């Protein structure tokens, strides 16, 4: 009897949710029709008539909106994936440093985490772009010649040219997310019993080796869930790129929406693209998580 009641209750909640969703969608459709904004995606095949400063794939203003949005998505993907790698390295280094035996390293890491986490990301982005990077000289005869140049027109390393906009977004995202990852890593390290640290130290292993071979593997299951949520945050925060002129997906959508007047469709596509991207990140992290847990069970 109790079981049936519980099932009925759950069923009711599901029905309620579905009804609510149906009402909202219907409401949207009715209102769209009423204001003459009926959904249409035919504009996607029309030429855009605007140029993009950065494109990994060939692009010209005579290409379609769909292609422009895709090129924007690739630009987003580019900065997000580079950001994920950089933020992870930075975060793991800073997080480990907070449990280091070296007091200077500990203090530096603590300062980094506390300062960066107190300042809004948009302000940091503006700082990196307008103050740090655009404050560089227009051209500088670098002593390293063609190996490395750093000007306010861009950064070139070994022939690879990075725009100032890309560099600023990458710096802001990885430094900001790195600080949060450092906290996640520190939490994970703290979850490993003190005895393990003492054990590898008494074995005469160096700090670095002990951390890598003994502590980090045990901390990993505690780190991964927090890490994936930081990764998702980084991906979402990348939309701030529009503020400093990096042609990411949001920036391209923004222009497309004003030129076509198709705000609802534009935002639907935008939502869908980010949902896809984050599902991808989430999926990869889940796989990783499962692998780590399985390995933990085996040993």
């Amino acid at each position, binding site marked *: 009897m109790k079981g049936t009641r519980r099932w009925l209750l759950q069923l009711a909640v599901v029905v309620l949710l579905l009804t609510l969703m149906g009402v909202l969608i*219907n409401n949207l459709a009715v209102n769209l029709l009423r204001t*003459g904004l009926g959904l249409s995606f035919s504009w996607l095949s029309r030429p855009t008539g605007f*140029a993009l400063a950065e494109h990994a794939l060939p692009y010209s203003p005579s290409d379609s909106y769909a292609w422009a949005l895709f090129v924007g998505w690739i630009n987003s993907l580019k900065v997000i994936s580079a950001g994920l790698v950089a933020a992870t390295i930075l975060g793991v280094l800073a997080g480990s440093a907070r449990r280091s035996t070296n007091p200077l390293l500990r203090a530096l890491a603590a300062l980094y985490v506390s300062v960066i986490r107190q300042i809004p990301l948009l302000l940091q982005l503006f700082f990196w772009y307008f103050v740090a990077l655009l404050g560089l000289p227009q051209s500088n005869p670098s002593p390293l010649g063609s190996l490395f140049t750093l000007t306010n027109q861009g950064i070139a390393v070994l022939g690879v040219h990075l725009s100032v906009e890309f560099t600023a977004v990458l710096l802001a995202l990885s430094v900001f997310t790195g600080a949060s990852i450092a906290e996640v890593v520190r939490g994970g390290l703290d979850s490993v019993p003190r005895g393990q640290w003492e054990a590898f130290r008494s074995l005469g292993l160096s700090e670095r080796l002990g951390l890598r071979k003994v502590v980090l593997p045990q901390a990993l299951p505690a780190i991964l869930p927090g890490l994936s949520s930081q990764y998702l945050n980084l991906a979402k925060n990348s939309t701030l790129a*529009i503020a400093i*002129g990096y042609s990411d997906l949001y920036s391209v959508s*923004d222009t497309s929406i004003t*030129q076509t007047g198709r705000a609802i469709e534009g935002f639907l596509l935008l939502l869908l693209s980010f949902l896809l991207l984050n599902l991808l990140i989430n999926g990869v992290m889940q796989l990783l998580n499962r692998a780590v847990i399985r390995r933990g069970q085996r040993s």
Partner: protein
Amino acid sequence: MPFRTLWVSLAAALMLQACATLGEGGASRLGLIQQRQTLRCGVSGKIPGFSFLSSDGDYSGLDIDLCRAFAAAFIGDADAIEFRQLTAPERFTALRTGEVDLLSRNTTFNLSRDAAGGNGVSFAPVVFHDGQGLMVKTSRGIRTIDDLNGETICVGSGTTTEQNLNDAFEARGIAYTPIKYQDLNQVVAGYLQGRCAAMTSDRSQLAAARSGFAKPKQHQILEAVLSKEPLAPLSAGGDQRLGDAMRWVVYALITAEELGITKANVGDWLDKANKQTELTRLRRFLGVDGDLGMKLGLEADFVVKTIAATGNYGEIYNRHLGPNSAVPIPRGINQLYRDGGAMTAPPFQ
């Protein structure tokens, strides 16, 4: 218990549905404005001379005075306005969803915005003939567009500016890299920091931005005009009453300048019209005779109230863009037709 929840949810669904379909009737927004006794005016708030939020919390500028003129004509009170600050991408959605009654926000009048198959809004007459221009640092030695070959240009996204820039450069076969910022303030910062050789926007906005620079003389607006940018107030499409009322308020401002009726002397003109029955045209214009106001759904004396609140078009222009204002822009094509400009109004008959 679960069944009760179900009924409640169904009832809620029906009610929401009713809300969605309600208000579909053909009533004009003009009636709604008069009923609520407030005009919701969408503005930019960031362009000195047009609409700018000053340090004391008041808006001022040409676009703001147009809102005030509309409020005076529709409601009889030039201060009965709620201003909504809108970004360029937000503005049309805000208008169509009814968040604002009308826009007075540096908006270019063009076909795809006006047509039912495009943004589907309806424009009032042009209140400022603008054009897109380019600003460069005088020290760079750039004189014409062709000197900008291969250069980087800072541009604001979400406006017609991007397309105009591309059209102009493509037509001349000049390569360029656009750096697009969402906001004009960032365009200015990027340009001043040396990210771009030039920044582009409407010439009025360039002049307004330059007025805030530390050394305005070191920046030059190129002669070339990339586009026609006739700026006009607008309302949602399919609402003839509001559209007509707005149109004739703008025409009233222009006609008043033609006749020499100003904020200071509108009372004298009204006395004169009351006394001298032979001045039929003036009597019709000021609402002493005839039913012009009623035809628009406004009070008979809407012209008098409007001029008393804001002055005529020339007065509004001089107050915000004249030679003694903070953002002087030569009146040029915005003069009356009589004086060699493009400003003129059809008869009040």
